[in-house]
């Protein structure tokens, strides 16, 4: 397509936005030509989200101007943005769970046609892009991939000239990602520009033809992702060199330390997933990963392993041969099982309490921070200070409230608190979710070190790249069922993706039909292909 002579589809000139205490965007300028797929790169807090909110009219810039197709525009609201032809797919979907797909789509349009006509148009778009979705299903019954399709269809119905995608793949299976990329490439070939925000660098390499890198609210570089390596882009993002994780090859795996057999538990109604005969074992010195799309039983598994949920649980959880299944959370901690749930603010840590008090909450018995019902405040402070020091947590001290820490620093503290208790088994969920690259690599290294000392480490994560980098073996959880474990060396990504999407490979033999799979049946996410 001949687009050279035309003005860029979107051009930002000197956009600045300040919030009390921070400059979110500092004179940001870049341009996206028509039909281009342009990446916006940066760590958490680099100002990407603020910038796209300004482009989509959710927020207003303090300074600078925006030109669209060569004309200077003022975008005062999302409605004005849509009128210009700007569509957006949000990171956290702006969907209404209790409503149907069609109602959700109608809400996203300014002047939706009557219901029947809208339905016909939706089906047309679905057909023409080869997407499958039932317009009459309620959103809460859909898989994450399907939910994202709603957002995409909603944007496509407006025939956008610029589509903004904010971290669209963080919750998709590899096959779903591939399908999304095909849709995006096709859109771009039809002349729609795409502004793609992600921190998954290999995806950006595969999809985008140009990129703008933000750091601390400023543009620090532009590049052609196809010619960069993931590592060079990461270093551009963090503005320093990336440390390598130490080699795990020297690790010697010992005996089975943590053995879980036939663990079943009902899910919390109305939307919980029940666990169905989950079995696996983790050896001493080993990091074992559990991959899967969110909502397939990960939270339930964590709660059952940590001891938070003991009602109606059957099966066994053994640590060095000792049965833990009957023990309380505290009893399991004393036995040597440390755990850290997915949600750090409010679940792993109490935001309103100091770091010392938070340390006390989980390390009380193992570190002897209380005796006879009396708190040893000084000992708790010292322990918290040791964690802060050893894990280079940026905080004013043990007296700082947990809520005042940034996500990455709080996660470092939470992980440090567990690891420094020297557990025999560490169970963590999403250890680096929403954490910047530097802190993430620190946390991963700490887990590797813990395993090297002989502990068994279980990592539950939606980030497949993380698991592939970190783990020795991994298994996939889908609908509360765990697949056979696979060695990470020589693993087939395609097979992992199929397992994540709920298709069990033929090599697996018969499906584990226990005949009792009840409520969960109704919400099979549909196959990814």
């Amino acid at each position, binding site marked *: 397509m001949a687009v050279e002579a035309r003005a860029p589809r979107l051009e930002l000139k000197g956009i600045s936005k300040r919030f009390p205490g921070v400059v979110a965007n500092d004179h940001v300028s870049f341009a996206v030509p028509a039909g281009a797929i342009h990446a916006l790169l940066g760590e958490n807090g680099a100002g990407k989200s603020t910038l796209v909110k300004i482009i989509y009219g959710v927020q207003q810039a303090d300074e600078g101007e925006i030109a669209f197709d060569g004309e200077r525009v003022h975008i005062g609201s999302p409605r004005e943005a849509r009128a210009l032809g700007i569509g957006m797919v949000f990171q956290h979907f702006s969907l209404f769970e*209790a409503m149907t797909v069609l109602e959700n789509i109608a*809400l996203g349009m300014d002047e939706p046609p009557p219901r029947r006509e809208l339905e016909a148009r939706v089906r047309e778009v679905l057909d023409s892009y080869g997407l499958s979705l039932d317009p009459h299903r309620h959103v809460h019954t859909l898989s994450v991939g399907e939910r994202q399709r709603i957002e995409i269809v909603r944007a496509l119905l407006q025939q956008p000239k610029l589509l903004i995608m904010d971290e669209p793949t963080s919750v998709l299976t590899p096959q779903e990602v591939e399908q999304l990329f095909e849709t995006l490439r096709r859109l771009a070939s039809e002349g729609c520009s795409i502004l793609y925000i992600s921190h998954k660098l290999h995806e950006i390499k595969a999809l985008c033809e140009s990129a703008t890198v933000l750091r601390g609210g400023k543009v620090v570089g532009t590049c052609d992702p196809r010619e960069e390596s993931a590592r060079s882009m990461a270093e551009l993002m963090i503005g320093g060199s990336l440390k390598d994780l130490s080699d795990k090859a020297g690790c010697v795996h010992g005996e089975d330390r943590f053995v879980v057999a036939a663990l079943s538990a009902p899910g919390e109604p109305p939307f919980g997933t029940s666990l169905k005969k989950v079995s696996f074992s983790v050896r001493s010195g080993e990091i074992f990963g559990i991959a899967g799309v969110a909502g397939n039983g990960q939270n339930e598994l964590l709660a059952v392993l940590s001891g938070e949920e003991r009602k109606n649980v059957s099966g066994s959880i053994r640590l060095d041969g000792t049965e833990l299944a009957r023990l309380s959370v505290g009893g399991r901690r004393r036995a040597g099982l440390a755990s850290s749930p997915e949600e750090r603010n409010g679940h792993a840590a109490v935001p309103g309490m100091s770091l010392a008090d938070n340390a006390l909450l989980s390390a009380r018995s193992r570190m002897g921070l209380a005796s006879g019902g009396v708190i040893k405040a000084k000992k708790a402070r010292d322990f918290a200070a040791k964690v802060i020091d050893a894990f280079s947590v940026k905080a004013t001290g043990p007296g700082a409230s947990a809520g005042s820490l940034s996500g990455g620093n709080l996660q470092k503290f939470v992980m440090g608190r567990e690891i420094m208790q020297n557990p025999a088994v560490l169970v963590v969920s999403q250890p680096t979710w929403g954490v910047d690259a530097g802190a993430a690599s620190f946390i991963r290294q700490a887990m590797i070190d813990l395993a090297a000392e002989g502990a068994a480490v279980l990592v539950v994560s939606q980030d497949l790249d993380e698991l592939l980098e970190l783990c020795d073996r991994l298994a996939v959880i889908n609908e509360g069922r765990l697949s056979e474990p696979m060695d990470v060396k020589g693993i087939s990504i395609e097979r992992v993706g199929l397992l994540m999407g709920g298709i069990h490979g033929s090599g697996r033999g018969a499906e584990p039909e226990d005949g009792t799979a009840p409520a969960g049946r109704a919400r099979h996410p549909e196959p990814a292909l």
Partner: protein
Amino acid sequence: MSLDLLVAILMTIAGAATPLLIAGLGELVVEKSGVLNLGVEGMMLIGAVTGFAVATSTGLPVLGALAAMGAAALAAAIFAVLVLTLMANQVATGLALTIFGTGVSALIGAPFVGITTPTLGPIFPDFLTSSPLLRLVFGHSPLVYLGLLLTLAVWWFLNRARAGLILRAVGESDSAAHAIGYPVLKVRYLAVLFGGAMAGLAGSYYSLVLTPMWAERLTAGRGWIAIALVVFASWRPGRMLAGAYLFGLVMTMELQAKAAGFNMVAPEVLAALPYIATIAVLAIISAARRGGTAAPACLGKPFRAAA
């Protein structure tokens, strides 16, 4: 039982159910938008006294009903400013509104105690109400018919109209609605005002239809039953209609037992039935749902536009 008696019983049930239905539909719309207004009782009292005052002063009960809606909507506006703009706690503010309404209505109503007012009686000509069956159809206050029409209108609004879809969206996820570009606070203001007007109208039913006189605390806790009915109806207008008439039946048990000469149970127990039924219904519903409810996801949460 004679036909006359049966019709009389059915008509008292409709009479008892109508204010619950009207106030409940108003609160249903408010809650669908994500706001919990526990001040229904207070707004009903303000409506009841305003309606009575205007009707006695002008001799026009219709004007009284309109004034009742306006006055209660004004009280609702105070609530809206407090919880929506100033983001005060909705539960506490709602309770305060009820206390406020009780006090203000007693104050305004003091000079009106002991007088009677022209009522909003049956509107159809006499020949249409000559037989019991015709009376059952045509013999009601206009507010009874209005309640039925309102049920239909609210159902249509919530399920068929675009504005209703937006209102539900705001109640389901205020942040998502805001991100798409809907004016969350404006929608909630309008919903709260509508809820106030309906509570006022329901209140005026007590002073202009049921008992053509004013007394302190005339509504006797019916506002709370209307709020409970919203939960009972799982936020659906059709079930609200059924619930209101069911409670109308329970509430008139005392009268009916008397009329039928039934005296095995103390009348006080029968008079307490609606309140016991309210508690029982709420307990059964929350037990049956086990955590999951049909409640709008953002019910009772203040909304602050993301910085």
